[in-house]
């Protein structure tokens, strides 16, 4: 969809036009849903994606257009995900502490895991390592920002990123 059309829709949606907001949903839902799906467990992705768009609708009045709407929505998505992570409070072995994170995190035999594709392997990482990896390598955040968002020191973000990458090396094949 042409950018200026979406920008007009942002203004319309901010004024309460639900049809315009639906067009924004159609244009951005894949990106939002994919980010949520990679950051959280798959069965939460639909709910959290809905929450993201509800929040966006409520907060559109505060969107001032300094950044692109997509960037603003992306940031909002990360905030909703991280708030969810705090409120749920249950994190699977949050950070990797040795060199066999997938085996430890899942308790599965390596032969089973070798049949996983990259996204599945990513989903099986401990939450903390997975979120660092998604934010840094998929979404392009810097360690300082990630550390602030996750409430850890940058060194932790760096070492978790490295562990996550090391674990994912074996699942590069599609």
């Amino acid at each position, binding site marked *: 969809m042409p950018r200026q059309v979406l920008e007009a829709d942002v203004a319309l949606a901010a004024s309460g036009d639900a049809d315009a907001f639906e067009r924004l949903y159609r244009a951005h839902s894949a990106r939002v849903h994919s980010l949520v799906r990679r950051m959280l467990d798959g069965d939460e992705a*639909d709910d959290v994606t809905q929450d993201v768009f509800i929040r966006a609708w409520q907060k559109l009045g505060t969107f001032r257009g300094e950044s692109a709407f997509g960037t603003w929505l992306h940031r909002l998505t990360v905030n909703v995900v991280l708030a969810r992570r705090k409120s749920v409070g249950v994190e699977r072995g949050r950070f990797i502490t040795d060199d066999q994170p997938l085996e430890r995190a899942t308790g599965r035999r390596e032969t089973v895991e070798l049949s996983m594709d990259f996204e599945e392997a990513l989903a099986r990482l401990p939450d903390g390592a997975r979120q660092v990896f998604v934010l840094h*390598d998929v979404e392009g955040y810097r360690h300082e920002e990630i550390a602030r968002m996750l409430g850890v020191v940058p060194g932790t973000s*760096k070492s978790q990123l490295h562990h996550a990458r090391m674990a994912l090396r074996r699942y590069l094949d599609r």
Partner: protein
Amino acid sequence: MNHQWTDRLSEYLDGELMSAERDALETHLAGCAHCRDTLAELRAVVARAQSLENRAPAADLWPEIHARLTVRRRFSLTVSQLLAASIALVVLSGGGVWLALRDGSGTSDPTMAAFPQLVAPAGTPVAWRARTDMAVAQLEETLAQNESRLDTATVRVVRQNLGIIDRAIEKAQRALQADPGSAYLNLHLAQTMRRKIELLRRANALAVAES
């Protein structure tokens, strides 16, 4: 992971090592195939992460999102507004229209002034019915767009009324098929159609007032 430098390879890859560390690591890399392989794999992981494709949710989440949006933006009607929206229900249920027409009060309804072209249709039934059908179609389309702004109770009342009116229209049309020249039945049908237009206009006005 016997190599002291292996754990630094991601930082090296990301350009985050100080120059002294970077130089030392590069010296090590020159002589260590294991670390070179690992570095290549890490680079491939990063490239894979950057090429991940976004996928839309399997189910369309919009209906649910839309329903929750309108919860916040809905408004509640006052009792008098609900009563106003229910006028057609009161008038039309139990044969009220027939009684109203017999005593003449139906034609003196001031809300009908807005639709002078619909008054006294008996002589030219085809023409007024075409105009009325068009007006109804436009209003129904508008209401379909506006309905989400009304709260559930109002929508229910409006739909109930429309259902009653539609059944009355259907009945009148069936009677007219048996007796096409009846001025009485034509007037009754026109009256019922005007009730429908009034109801649609009222519902739209309520919705637009909150948009």
